[in-house]
């Protein structure tokens, strides 16, 4: 689809949570081998969209480190583009470092483009979608802008997310927040399709609305006063990652294959991610592994149950890991028992023999901690 420019918007995907203290959620490990941005990028490439710019607000380095060369994702590195856009002027000024100002600073992306439509996607929603169909629905609506939403009954999992009230013409009547009183809600997936000319106009005018607004805020504001926003329903699996608890819960949900979560793995295409040279997993004579997702490079001679192990994790003989998520290069030494733990990269569990969290409150261990 060479008439669609995709903007992966990390400004509206940031979570102020312990998990993302030193990196973007976009480049945070997920399911052992992936980062969150891989899901969006794979959706885009599968939908034939290969003109992609990533709007980065902070932790620029962790994004470039994960992405590697564009050939990891693009089918053709001449006809496809994978750009990273940062607003250098506002790097030290997070309040004003909005996606709108990032786009104003890098407006060549819009003005050099011949695309008619712009797809704006966050990375903190996990879902599998065919954007081609979304674009078609947007075009058929005749509107300048469309938003993708999901109708949910389990509103507790979406508290404080944006919900939309839809009018009889399938347009947004108003935006609101999901509350604990809601039994059902149309949750905005913060994914928008916008006509290019409209977007250019909005960005130029947006400073008149507020200098602190992100595109998401501007769109919501304008939907009340300017253009009616078309609504497109996503009927498949979708989850929002707001914090560590969500991260833990939905990681294990996919491990268990619950709630239709396996839909994120398309049957006819692979999830794209950075490649590594890690060897296959070595299982020792004393290994006892059940119900786990395990990435290459791991060495297991202890017990692992209902857990997710990222690359190059070592579980020694006599160690036990249960209901836990271990990031790359974690080492669990002999005799240590982990349960309900999310261990960031390069942790070593050695001295403390019991490290226990709960499924409601998983215990997060900082990157590089020696315990």
């Amino acid at each position: 689809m060479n008439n669609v420019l995709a903007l992966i918007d990390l400004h509206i995907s940031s979570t102020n949570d312990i998990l993302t203290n030193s990196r973007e959620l976009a480049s945070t490990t997920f399911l052992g081998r992936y980062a969150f941005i891989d899901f969006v990028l794979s959706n885009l490439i599968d939908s034939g969209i290969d003109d992609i710019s990533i709007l980065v607000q902070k932790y620029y380095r962790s994004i470039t480190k994960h992405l590697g060369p564009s050939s990891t994702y693009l089918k053709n590195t001449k006809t496809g583009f994978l750009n990273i856009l940062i607003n250098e002027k506002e790097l030290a000024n997070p309040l004003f470092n909005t996606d709108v100002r990032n786009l104003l600073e890098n407006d060549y992306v819009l003005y050099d483009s011949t695309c008619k439509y712009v797809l704006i996607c966050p990375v903190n929603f996990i879902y599998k979608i065919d954007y081609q169909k979304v674009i078609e629905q947007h075009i058929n609506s005749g509107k300048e802008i469309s938003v993708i939403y999901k109708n949910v009954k389990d509103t507790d999992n979406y508290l404080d997310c944006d919900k939309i009230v839809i009018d009889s013409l399938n347009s947004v009547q108003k935006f609101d927040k999901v509350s604990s009183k809601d039994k059902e809600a149309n949750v905005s997936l913060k994914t928008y399709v916008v006509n290019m000319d409209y977007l250019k106009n909005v960005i130029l005018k947006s400073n008149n609305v507020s200098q602190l607004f992100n595109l998401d805020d501007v769109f919501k504001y304008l939907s009340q006063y300017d253009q009616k926003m078309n609504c497109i329903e996503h009927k498949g699996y979708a989850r929002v990652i707001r914090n560590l608890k969500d991260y833990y819960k939905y990681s294990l949900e996919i491990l268990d294959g619950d709630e239709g979560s396996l839909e994120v793995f398309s049957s006819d295409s692979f999830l794209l991610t950075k490649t590594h040279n890690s060897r296959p997993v070595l299982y020792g004579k004393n290994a006892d592994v059940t119900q786990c997702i395990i990435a290459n490079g791991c060495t297991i001679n202890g017990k692992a149950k209902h857990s997710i192990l990222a690359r190059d994790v070592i579980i020694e003989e006599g160690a036990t890991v249960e209901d836990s998520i271990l990031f790359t290069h974690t080492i669990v030494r002999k005799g240590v028992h982990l349960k309900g733990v999310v261990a960031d990269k390069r942790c070593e569990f050695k001295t403390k023999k019991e490290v226990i969290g709960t499924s409601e409150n998983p215990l997060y261990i900082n990157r590089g901690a020696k315990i």
Partner: protein
Amino acid sequence: MSRKTVAMILAGGKGTRLKALTKKIAKPAVYFGGKYRIIDFCLSNVANSHIDCVGVLTQYESVVLNNYISNGHIWGFDGVNSTCVALPPRQTEEGANWYKGTADAIAQNLDFLDGEEPDYVLILSGDHIYKTTYDEMINLHIKSGACCTISVMEVEWKEASRFGILEVDKEDRITKFVEKPKEPKSNLASMGVYVFTYKDLKKVLLEDMKNPDSSHDFGKDIIPNLLKANKKLMAYRFSGYWRDVGTLDSLHSANMELLPSRRTQDTINFDEPPIIYSEDTHSLPQFIGKNASIKDSLINQGASIFGSVSESIISNEVVVEEGAKVTNSVLMPGVKIGKNAIVNNAILGSNTVINDNEVVNKDGNEIVLLDKERSLQ
């Protein structure tokens, strides 16, 4: 500017003794160790030796291998001024020619070598499992001023008659080369790894091409001819892990040497540099089911294990269903093992399907091979 070495990898052989495994792919493209193909070792060794120009001579069933080699990006040869190219036989003004021997394969590509203007040419076999860098050998070759240096390793005396055996003087200058001698006088076996000074190589190849009686083989023709002409040939002593996986038994046993319980100090350590590079498939991480049991095995990403696996090598996209039991076996990519099936002492070629409750070689001590076609019968 430093002197240039070009690597030429001989990868055209059929590998007849690997039977069905090489029915549709060349031996160097056969899978090894759950993730790798045999040629990964040789190409990684070249890359790790900082040689940035490599030609891979392919012939037998070359489509998969040529596709795999591609532009060499797997081993990093897609950088500036680097070259990695598959060189299958071609049609020329003189007609179409197959490669008639190892030496003929290089001789038919002298134009490629001329274009690269190398000072030295490293000639390798694409079907050996070992991890090394060739720097020391090339440096020894340059220092000695020899026209050719051959990598050798000491083999057990009782095994010596299976190899091309070299006799050397006290400076390791080669005095005699005998292909598979009945009564060997040395236990230094040629590894099929040669460094040639290019101008000498070109000269001897052009002479060999004119000889109608030659079999155009490095071991049988080129090396003996150089010795006859009293040229200086040196031996380079290699020590370390090296395996020729030319038979089903040797392929199975080299795979099994990777298991944690059978590793020795010599066995290839994939975690230590130099790294062996391979295609990193876009597979999901491996999934281990609730009732799975895995002991002493090597399992690649993309595999789904619901049954029992012990002392086995499992490749990507393999599925072992619940109740199935796999022991002492090598499962290549895409193999499916049905529920309650038993597989023992086996090599299963890519995409082989073992049906529910099927038993493969339950009590057999011999290694058996099953392939995709058999499972369709």
